């Protein structure tokens, strides 16, 4: 409680971000920024303060003020139609993906929106999917208002081109649950009605009437299992056969029909009560396996292609007036306006006199490059600094970025051999089974023809690879759970198989092994006086250039007070020139200082990026920026080197080579200045000989990630974008990579072992079958036993392995 209070006083009441106490009065509530304050009061007025009771400071900080203009395009009819799922006269409903949903309070607030906008009828949150579906009254409000409202309270929906194009599907289809329900229901009851037979009811008190009764009931119950619950397997088997292939569903289907037909025959002919319980149970377990397999991770967005990076709309200049239009409507010759931090949607020519463009997105090069008037700017570049005008030279669809993406190497689906082990062995399996069946049939025809048919079917029944089909889904199922507990989220359960088989690891640099969030700054030169520092602070304060901001936050302490500037000018891509009182200051690149002051800074050989300072015509020195490795990474790289072939593949320049060469067996394994295309081809060539694990981030690695055997994209917020890849890895967990891979390999072994086990079951069963001892009871015991023991073994084994690898195995 006490602690609570203290925290409250030094952190924003809305979002919990730390607040410099000096700059705010101690009185509660306090805020880190104006945005938070507005939201707080907005909620207060509409007495929505429960928001703050449910969780401590649940809000989302509103650091960057928002420009209302941004959502104009939502008035556009065809945009609306794409965003609205359903609409009748008055009522419309629409669903948004909101990355910021993170706690109970979010759910509560978003489901009480009608108190903020009475046009909203109802909001429903799906927490895991971070999805908000809103039903609203079109006569009272519209999409734009809603989105703006959401943005003002810090829940900006994530509206991207890609979402406008395809609607996403349910992770596990409802049909599957229904099938499982029916199977489970029938399984339980059929078992009930099969008991009497096991307990030789018939010989006990004259209850033959029951035999008929139960037989009938069993048939009634088993039929829906056959025609409904097991339909998927039958269909897929049929599909496989009609394509002259054999997958695991073929032997399964054979088993299904053998079981059903044989049981039907026995009951109708009154020779027995058949194997319906085994049949239903078998389907039941298979379906459980299927559901586990279908497991996907809600809330994470995979498989975003370049479109998801592009904005939906852009400000277009139409006879001098800015108007927001959908980027797809851009034509060659259109003139568009981009603000700070906006992405260039299509290749175009700079109209303003200068601009700073950050291509890290495409090239990985973290330093912004300077563009001058009439320079060509490629799509995917991010404008930094003051807004600028551009002239469209290519439509979005034909821009560089798009071309890069449309690259056919990417198109060619590299589904060479990711068929599961189960599917690979099933042809042999099937043929062997059928072989045995026929042989034993012939054998018995010779010994005792009356038995032949029974034996034949019996073989087909016990050989049914139920446990086999369960091994992989269950191992991988529990393995994926463990991995996600440890920050590695796989797109599909089967991914583990691939991850486990890799032998080469390729790292991207910027943002992957180096932490883009923190680069460490060092100042080289004469020590700066307090006044000089304050000057630098004052002049860098307003600049949007990443380095200015880094310097600012590096020097800015609570005890400084800002110097008044009489004049300040930022020359894009060069530097800043400011005057305060009688002192002038220059902050910027080497040649900028040299040009403007005439000083000669000599030549200090530094690959590192540096920003130079000159005050009152004399040189003070320069700030140097070193990319910082993620912590624990050196150790990781060294560990990995011993077991895998490791490469560094960076679009960035060699500046960090020295720092890294130790970790990558010298320079031949470090490749710098690679364009996305080059990265892609590099992976392409290497994958001819090696199974590659590519680890990257950002669009520039997208191709490589997709091309590699297994692609992991690093993300520092699970809600942030990640290009097409097989898994997302939480940045802070990268240091565990070796354990994670090791665990994946272990899981693969577990699968093989459990295959072994289930095959043993089949063999035992066969032994019973060919000798003609497969009573319904034996079947009814063998089937569930095999399935359950496999489920048990796989789950336990994976947990143990995970423990050995020192991974979290419990929430």
């Amino acid at each position, binding site marked *: 409680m006490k602690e609570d209070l203290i925290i409250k006083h030094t952190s924003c009441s809305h979002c919990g971000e730390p607040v410099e106490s000096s700059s705010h009065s101690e009185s509660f509530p306090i805020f880190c920024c104006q945005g938070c304050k507005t939201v707080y009061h907005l909620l207060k007025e509409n007495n929505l*303060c429960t928001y703050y009771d449910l969780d401590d400071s649940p809000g989302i900080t509103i650091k960057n003020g928002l420009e209302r203009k941004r959502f104009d395009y939502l008035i556009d009819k065809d945009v609306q139609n794409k965003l609205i799922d359903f609409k009748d006269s008055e009522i419309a409903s629409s669903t948004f993906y909101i990355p910021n949903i993170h706690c109970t309070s979010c*759910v509560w607030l978003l489901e009480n929106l009608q108190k903020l906008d009475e046009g909203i009828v109802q909001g429903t949150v799906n927490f*895991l999917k971070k999805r908000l579906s809103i039903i609203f009254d079109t006569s009272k409000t519209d999409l734009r208002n809603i989105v703006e409202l959401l943005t003002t309270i810090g829940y900006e929906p994530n509206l991207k081109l890609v979402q406008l194009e395809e609607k996403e599907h349910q992770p596990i289809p*409802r049909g599957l649950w*229904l099938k499982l329900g029916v199977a489970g229901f029938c399984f339980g*009851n059929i078992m009930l009605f099969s008991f009497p037979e096991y307990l030789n009811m018939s010989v006990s008190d004259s209850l033959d009437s029951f035999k008929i009764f139960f037989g009938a009931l069993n048939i009634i119950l088993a039929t829906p299992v056959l025609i409904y619950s097991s339909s998927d397997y039958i269909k897929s088997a049929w599909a496989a056969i009609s394509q002259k292939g054999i997958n695991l569903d073929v032997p399964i289907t054979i088993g299904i029909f053998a079981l059903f037909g044989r049981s039907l025959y026995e009951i109708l002919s009154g020779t027995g009560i058949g194997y319906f319980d085994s049949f239903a149970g078998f389907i039941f377990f298979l379906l459980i396996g299927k559901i586990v397999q279908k497991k996907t991770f809600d809330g994470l967005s995979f498989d975003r292609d370049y479109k998801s990076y592009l904005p939906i709309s852009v400000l277009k200049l139409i006879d001098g007036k800015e108007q927001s239009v959908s980027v797809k409507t851009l034509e060659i010759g259109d003139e568009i306006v981009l603000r700070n931090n906006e992405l260039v949607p299509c290749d175009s020519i700079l109209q303003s006199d200068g601009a700073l463009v950050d291509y890290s997105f495409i090239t990985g090069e973290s330093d912004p490059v300077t563009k001058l008037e009439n320079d060509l700017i490629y799509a995917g570049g991010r404008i930094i600094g003051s807004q600028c005008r551009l002239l469209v030279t290519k439509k979005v669809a034909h821009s560089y970025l798009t071309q890069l993406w449309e690259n056919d190497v990417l198109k060619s689906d590299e589904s060479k051999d990711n068929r599961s082990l189960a599917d690979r062995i099933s042809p042999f399996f099937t043929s062997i089974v059928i072989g045995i069946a026929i042989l034993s049939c012939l054998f018995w025809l010779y010994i005792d023809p009356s038995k032949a048919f029974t034996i034949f079917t019996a073989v087909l029944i016990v050989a049914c690879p139920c446990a086999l089909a369960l091994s992989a889904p269950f191992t991988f199922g529990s393995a994926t759970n463990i991995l996600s507990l440890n920050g590695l989220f796989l797109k599909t359960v089967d991914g583990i198989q691939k991850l486990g088989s890799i032998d080469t690891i390729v790292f991207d640099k910027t943002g992957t092994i180096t932490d883009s969030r923190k680069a460490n700054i060092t100042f080289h030169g004469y020590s700066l006086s307090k006044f000089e520092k304050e000057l630098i602070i004052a002049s860098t304060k307003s600049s949007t250039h990443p380095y200015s901001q880094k310097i600012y936050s590096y020097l800015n302490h609570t005890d400084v007070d800002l110097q008044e500037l009489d004049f300040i000018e930022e020359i894009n891509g060069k530097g800043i020139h400011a005057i305060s009182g009688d002192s002038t200051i220059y902050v910027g690149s080497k040649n900028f200082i040299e040009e403007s002051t005439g000083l000669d800074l000599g030549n200090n050989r530094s690959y590192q990026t540096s920003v130079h300072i000159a005050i009152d015509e004399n040189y003070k020195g320069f700030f140097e920026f070193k990319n910082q490795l993620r912590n624990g990474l050196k150790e990781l790289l060294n560990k990995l080197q011993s077991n895998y072939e490791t490469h560094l593949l960076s679009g960035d320049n060699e500046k960090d080579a020295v720092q890294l060469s130790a970790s990558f067996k010298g320079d031949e394994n470090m490749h710098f200045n690679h364009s996305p295309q080059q990265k892609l081809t590099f992976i392409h060539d290497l994958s001819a000989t090696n199974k590659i694990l590519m680890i990257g981030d950002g669009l520039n690695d997208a191709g490589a990630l997709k091309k590699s055997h297994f692609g992991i994209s690093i993300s520092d917020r699970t809600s942030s974008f990640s290009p097409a890849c097989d898994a997302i890895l939480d940045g802070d967990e990268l240091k565990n990579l070796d354990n994670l891979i090791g665990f994946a390999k272990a899981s693969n072994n577990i699968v093989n072992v459990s295959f072994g086990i289930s095959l043993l079951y089949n063999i035992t069963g066969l032994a019973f079958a060919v000798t003609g001892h497969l009573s319904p009871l034996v079947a009814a015991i063998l089937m569930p036993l095999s399935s359950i023991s496999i489920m048990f073994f796989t789950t336990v084994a994976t947990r143990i392995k995970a423990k050995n690898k020192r991974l979290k195995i419990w929430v």
Partner: protein
Amino acid sequence: MGVIFFLILFSISVALIFLVAFFWAVRSGQFDDQYTPSVRILFDDKSSSPNNKTQTSKRDS
């Protein structure tokens, strides 16, 4: 033991009734979101009443 017939039939009909319920529930998307409902029930409808709030916050701390 004729009564066994009836007990079984009665039991099955009950179970079947629930099977139908199960179908309805799944098809109408009752179980699409298997997490948020558990959070939703924690909210008191009377957000505005101060009384309630003191109580919740009491329980929180």
